[in-house]
């Protein structure tokens, strides 16, 4: 018994709260008396919030138009038919006429929507080179392997910007014309094509490569544009702050959508007479119809939408809050009944004893 030789009490366990599992502890019990008021309060709060959300969602106006033209109803069907089975499709223009009986409360935003387009397909999603897009010259010349088959052009030149996402950049364009008086001339409504991308994307994540001799075109010398593009990347816009990799259309497109039906911001309408919204009158949207969607069974839509504090029109949140709030109150009542019944039972039991 060698261990008994040690000093008496040496083996005695520490008498601390932790070792004896007697740490002071808060032992909450979600009893009915706490939970019931909570249920009712939460229910009421949710219903209030839900009503607010619902009404502000209802207050948001949306105007959408499917210009795919595959049903032959719209005048874009000519373009759709022309582009059928031809790659690249020929340039084609069509228009959408609509009239607003009253002011379309603004600020108004112009979106386009694609359906059945899998931007979230894994092979598609990884097909990009963020280093190249951040303006790294070495990456410009040597696009990442993930970009294949859009890594090198047929001539063997590196593609900039490489990858499937960039290659499939949405290239329809819209212009909005307003006819104030019937029979009067159409006036072009200015569309603000800037400020549509995330601030951090536009300012940090996407950078043009360093200029060569003050020219962006020279910086991209020795690279090829993606095969589907008609223009090289440095020609996307005449505005030097909106061309190359920092073209906002391009930046918006490069943020891949979560679902196969998605909307992307095209322009903001916030200038001149249109800052408060679109006044009543007849409108025409001139559409340059380039983008082939019928090949994959998709649709393209053009959407005018106003925006509130909660974003675009979305009745889901409001309805969900209303449902959960009502459920809370309903359950509160059920609980109350159960609680009272148990209380009674206990009282009876106590009486018996």
């Amino acid at each position, binding site marked *: 018994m060698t*261990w*008994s030789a040690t000093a008496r009490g*040496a083996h*005695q*366990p520490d008498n601390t709260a932790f*070792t*004896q599992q*007697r*740490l*002071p*502890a808060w*032992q*909450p*019990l*979600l*009893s009915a008396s706490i*939970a019931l008021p909570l249920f009712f309060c*939460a229910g009421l709060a949710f219903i209030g*919030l839900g009503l607010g959300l619902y009404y502000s969602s209802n207050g948001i106006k949306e105007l959408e138009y499917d210009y795919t033209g595959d049903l032959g109803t719209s005048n874009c069907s000519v373009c759709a038919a022309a582009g059928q089975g031809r790659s690249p499709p020929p340039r084609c223009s069509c228009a959408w006429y609509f009239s607003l009986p009253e002011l379309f409360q603004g600020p108004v*935003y112009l979106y386009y929507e694609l359906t059945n387009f*899998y*931007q*979230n*397909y*894994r*092979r*598609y999603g990884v097909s990009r*080179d963020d280093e190249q897009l*951040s303006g790294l010259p070495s990456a410009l010349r040597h696009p*990442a392997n993930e970009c294949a*088959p*859009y890594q090198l052009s047929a001539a063997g030149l590196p593609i900039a910007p490489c990858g*499937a996402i960039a290659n*499939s950049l949405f290239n329809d364009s819209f212009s909005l014309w307003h006819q104030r008086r019937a029979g009067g001339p159409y006036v072009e409504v200015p569309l603000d094509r800037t*400020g549509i*991308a*995330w601030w*951090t*994307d536009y300012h940090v*994540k996407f950078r043009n490569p360093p200029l060569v001799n003050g020219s962006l075109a020279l910086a991209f010398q020795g690279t090829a544009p993606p095969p589907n593009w008609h223009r090289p990347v440095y020609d996307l816009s005449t505005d030097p702050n909106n061309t190359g990799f920092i073209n906002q259309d391009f930046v918006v497109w490069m*943020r891949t959508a*979560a*679902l196969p039906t998605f909307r992307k*911001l095209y322009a903001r309408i916030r200038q001149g007479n249109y800052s408060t919204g679109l006044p009543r009158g007849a409108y025409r949207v001139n559409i340059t119809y380039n983008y082939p969607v019928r090949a*994959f069974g998709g649709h393209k839509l053009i959407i005018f*939408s106003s*925006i509130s504090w909660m*974003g*675009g*029109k*979305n009745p889901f*949140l409001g309805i*969900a*809050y209303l449902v*959960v709030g009502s*459920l809370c109150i309903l359950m509160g009542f059920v*609980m109350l009944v*159960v609680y009272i019944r148990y209380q009674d*039972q206990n009282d009876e*039991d106590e009486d018996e004893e």
Partner: protein
Amino acid sequence: METKMALNYQGKSQKRSAVEKSINAFLIVYLFILLTKAAVCTTLKYVWQSTPYNDEPWYNQKTQKERESLKVLKMFTDFLSFMVLFNFIIPVSMYVTVEMQKFLGSFFISWDKDFYDEEINEGALVNTSDLNEELGQVDYVFTDKTGTLTENSMEFIECCIDGHKYKGVTQETDGLSQTDGPLPYFDKADKVTFSVYGFTFVGIRNGYMRVENQRKEIEEYELLHTLNFDSVRRRMSVIVKTQSGDILLFCKGADSAVFPRVQNHEIELTKAHVERNAMDGYRTLCVAFKEIAPDDYERINRQLIEAKLALQDREEKLEKVFDDVETNMNLIGATAVEDKLQDQAAETIEALHAAGLKVWVLTGDKMETAKSTCYACRLFQTSTELLELTTKTIEESERKEDRLHELLTEYRKKLLREFPKSTRSLKKAWTEHQEYGLIIDGSTLSLILNSSQDSSSNNYKSIFVQICMKCTAVLCCRMAPLQKAQIVRMVKNLKGSPITLSIGDGANDVSMILESHVGIGIKGKEGRQAARNSDYSVPKFKHLKKLLLAHGHLYYVRIAHLVQYFFYKNLCFILPQFLYQFFCGFSQQPLYDAAYLTMYNICFTSLPILAYSLLEQHINIDTLTADPRLYMKISGNAMLQLGPFLYWTFLAAFEGTVFFFGTYFLFQTSSLEENAKVYGNWTFGTIVFTVLVFTVTLKLALDTRFWTWINHFVIWGSLAFYVFFSFFWGGIIWPFLKQQRMYFVFAQMLSSVSTWLAIFLLIFISLFPEILLIVLKNVRRRSARRNLSCKKASDSLSTRPSVRPLLLRTFSDESNIL
């Protein structure tokens, strides 16, 4: 290697707890879910891809290599990719956490100061940390008697010399000095020094026994011979030579062994004393002496040496000599010693009974002794009807087996009449029905278990098992160590494979300790073999109560919750990822960023559950020890049965669905921000992930009944860490990353009011059923508790009068049966 230790040793095998077996069963279910998911996705992928524009739309062309690869190969790699994508559903990190929980958790046993014993200056010892939770699952307790239920320390109560009773100090010295010279007791075999008042046996030196008398003088006796103890004679003797040259023989032994060998006229008074002492529950020991003339001694000496040196039949020869020598003695008197029951042994057994455990006493002792101990420690109540299956009831006859058969069938009939229902309701039935106790001894047991391998013996066995299962208490006496293990094995293999626990203190208990699911060693006086071979060792039997009722219960609840929680949190982690495949063309697109995927189990959700599984006390320790019935609530692995498992799985499925579709519907809009900008797929995943982390952590918070500062720290800390990490991870362009997917995603996400509202709502919806359930449970628990306290109050009035914790036993040879 023919030592008793070696012969009784059994191979040590790996012990695995019932919880671990449940984990494996769950794993198989989840593996099946994983395979199903992967198979479903692969199948649907190829169905979906059968439309050519889905397979390879113009905007998303394959490389030449991809086009050329074999379809079968592609399907296989797709299947594997899905497996990789969903593999988080198998909670690998759970194994690490479980091990940590067990290892760290076991410290609480060794740290418990209630297990600390002043006498031996030691606390509990944990030899394995694998079985903590098994302590909460025990169905059968097998306990040794001597040293486990009793102290194994003989305390002198009284003696009678020449028919006069002496008690207390002064009388004692007087009494002894009156008789024929100084007569110290010694029990050389046990090396226990009997200190009889005034006379102290100092020790043996150079063959002289030294005794200090009441005048503090040392008297020396030359030890000539020791006539060793054996269980047939049931006595032992020494032959000594006094300083004056007289040769004396002192003999001690059981009354039945000594009385026939002394002159008849001396017996009567002493006999009466011995009988009264036995009734009072003391171990009695008779002492006799005789003077041996020098001539006689010469002869005896020669005979003894001859017998001792005999090469053949030495034992028989020695026995014969002993038999010759130990005759015509003069009775000195008898002593009564008490082997006291251990402190609170009876209370512990009562608590174990109340907890629904079946307690079996396995002892090497003879039946009468063991029986009285069992009464004393309330294993048998006075109302318990005893069924005896012993050599006495069966008798030494030719028709042994027939008689045994008769008895067995008779008992079974009796019991079946009493408990017509199945064994499940037995626990409740105990309180209402007549209680039965079974007594069986070793030889009968071997008759039942080992006799010829014909059909009738199997039949015996099944009848015997039936009887055993219906008895509240079973006493097995005259057991050889391996028989103890045999019994444990028999019970272990019963239907429903009950969890067995063995507790013992001696080397003879080792095989039983090793055989049972949980082995507990008592750090007793019989050496350390039991404690060393055990899974846990405690100083005293009474510690078993807290060990099982409090520690075992808590460990079980903790680990069961931990296991369920792990499966739960991984299922609701992966389910949205699975659902997402339906919206991304089954392309194995991960919903969450890689950092989130890896850190979810390691950093964001690991510590709260670890802290929970170490600190949770859903019921107070004091309440657990005070109310043994609570132990029944978790018996039969109750928290890891199919019901709770399905509950957790459905909860996880519900929450995963809410996470995904909540976010899905949230995204059915042009924008979530007031500046009209649009979110992408990584924001979608991050919203789901944020809701997920908060929900699973808050779910644990809802389950936590015992909030120490550590719980607060890890729960709120984990959530804070998640938010901090997300900002950090998205705040920097990481040079080593190929894709800057998460850049400012989290911050941008939080700039939207809708997202905040949605996150809050989804967390609330996910937890809503749980909150409802908890409130409902609490309403019921409160009323139940009130009823309970009323019942307790009425119970305490009618508790049974405590039986005197004494042993009705006579001198026995048990310490020599190893």
